[in-house]
């Protein structure tokens, strides 16, 4: 180091001095980047390898081909988890999009107290999923939550037991997830709405378009790149959802709200079936790639078009 500094002060070595001056930058960027990349890649490869071995309690070598995959895919646990993921993913993404968009449009009406409301709507994002899950598990618990509150108010026939209802329990996860993340969608949509040229809205006003038509035909179509970003971010949250579900329903009642991440946890750490757990994790990764790869391709095409224009 001292050597490098002394050469840096010597005239005629601009490249070296530049390197030294920028050394902290390089260290700060590359060391963490390489470390995290190494972690990510090496453990992904490790997991993929494990998924082809007969590992149970501890990793072992050996090759069992697709046996772990077949057994996971055939298990009722995984099938329910996958069906739940489809329902949860679609319902959660659509509803949080709609909620976020409606909130953004309402906030965009130049209302008073916008900053306060924006903070309130965005705040759940700062809360940990475990907290969200726990709080909602209390709220939705028929014995102590909303149902009890309404009963105490006098409406004794009120019935809201989704949390303990096999068919409806998955919707409690949808509700909690929407509460948590529609503020994120709102923030992105609001930024999109604010970036619309006001002259365009004025032009629509002169053209005689009412507020609904202006939003539907003029403003919202400009938001679809943001919509895609929101969908992708929410979908990857939905696919990897774990802590929220674990705290809220823990997969129950029974295995009614099982999701892939819970299956992985269950196999790996409770049933000590490392190989199968790894296979389930790789399956999750594949689902994630099925979302992210088309998105990456879309981004690539967009950038190409932008470069050509």
């Amino acid at each position, binding site marked *: 180091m001292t050597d490098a500094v002394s050469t840096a002060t010597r005239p005629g070595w601009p490249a070296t001095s530049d390197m030294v001056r920028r050394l902290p930058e390089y260290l700060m960027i590359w060391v963490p980047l390489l470390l995290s990349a190494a972690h990510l890649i090496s453990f992904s490869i490790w997991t993929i390898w494990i998924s082809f071995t007969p590992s149970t309690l501890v990793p072992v070598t050996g090759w069992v081909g697709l046996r772990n995959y077949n057994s996971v895919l055939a298990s009722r646990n995984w099938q329910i988890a996958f069906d739940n993921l489809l329902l949860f993913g679609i319902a959660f993404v659509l509803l949080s999009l709609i909620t976020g968009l409606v909130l953004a449009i309402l906030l965009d009406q130049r209302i008073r107290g916008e900053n306060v409301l924006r903070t309130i709507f965005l705040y759940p994002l700062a809360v940990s999923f475990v907290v969200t899950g726990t709080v909602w598990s209390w709220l939705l618990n028929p014995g102590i939550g909303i149902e009890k509150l309404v009963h105490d108010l006098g409406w004794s026939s009120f019935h809201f037991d989704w949390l303990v209802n096999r068919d409806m329990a998955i919707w409690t996860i949808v509700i909690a997830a929407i509460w948590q993340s529609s503020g994120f969608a709102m923030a992105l949509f609001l930024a999109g709405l604010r970036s619309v040229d006001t002259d365009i809205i004025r032009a*629509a006003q002169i053209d005689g378009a009412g507020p609904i038509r202006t939003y539907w035909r003029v403003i919202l179509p400009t938001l679809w790149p943001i919509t895609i970003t929101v969908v992708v971010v929410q979908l990857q949250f939905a696919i990897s959802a774990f802590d929220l579900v674990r705290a809220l329903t823990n997969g129950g009642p029974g295995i009614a709200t099982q999701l892939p991440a819970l299956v992985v946890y269950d196999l790996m750490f409770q049933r000590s079936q490392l190989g199968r757990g790894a296979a389930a994790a790789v399956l999750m990764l594949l689902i994630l790639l099925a979302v992210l790869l088309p998105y990456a391709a879309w981004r690539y095409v967009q950038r190409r078009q932008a470069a050509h224009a």
Partner: protein
Amino acid sequence: MAALSIRALSKRYANLEVLKGIDLDIESGEFTVLVGPSGCGKSTLLNIVAGLDRASDGTIEIGGRVVNDVPPKDRDIAMVFQSYALYPSMTVRQNITFGMECRHVAKAEQEKALANVAKLLQIEPLLGRKPSQLSGGQRQRVAMGRALVRDPLLFLFDEPLSNLDAKLRVEMRMEIKRLHQRIGATIVYVTHDQIEAMTMATRIAVMHRGVVQQFADPDTVYRYPANLFVARFMGSPPMNSMPARLEANAGGPVAVIGAGRPDEVRIHLQDYDAATSYVGREVVLGIRPECIAEGDRVFSAATGAPVIVTAPVELVEPTGAETIVLLRLGGEPAQARISPDIRPTPGGTASFALDTRRICLFDPETERLIA
């Protein structure tokens, strides 16, 4: 019939008064240009006429109907924006027909109107494109098409050419003027560019600090600017203005620039009867650069010989079409436009001819035109 009447209109934002008692009457078929430096209130005035902004006081009539409380869509107006404001997600065709769609015009009629406008503006090949696939000039045409297709009582243009490059701006300027001559529309056009105002307008309203300084045809605004602001704003290079002293003389007063100096300039003013009351007082003398020319220039139909002065030359700017010379008249700086092939030497002196018929005199206190 007055297409647009504005009466005692004012606009305040909190304590800031941006428009102060505007009165304008615009006849049908006129091309009125609102011109002024940025912040003079011209765009605010246009927005109030369009109904996008509310007046604090006063009335606006469009086609004889008070429209203060009428929403923009029912004012029978069309507007072209500086940013063009094309709907980015719609094709050119949809951009143009969107207004008719909102007004529930029959499909066949929409097609007819679209075809007419597309032909008029020669944008037929662009109809299927999105605004992002158009050049600046093409977007400009589409924005005009969107306005034209409505066939309104009043067209409002908000600095429509300021985003174009210089060459295209001149082309579009001529095109808009031609369009006005062809369809005889009533246009209110906002710009900060005095050349656009001079070349296109049938009448110019020069605005400054929320007040209409002068509302007249371009020749009058140029020849008889109502005050020093208008004199200096219109024309490029601007009108030269310098203090001068009026002295009595048989056959009209004499203006003396740099009185008492060895190089004082004495100018006999003929037909300046309004100035007689200022004899013996200081005035501001305004003279356009083109009224100061090389010494042997003969101004057309000049009565009598022009005033010839010998003056020091400070700077010479050849522009190709003419030479701009910065000189000193009686010690006061002035710009002259002389023939392109004459290049006086900076630092030396040269002789200049003054066209004295077009001199303007202003009151030094009120800055208003005396004569």
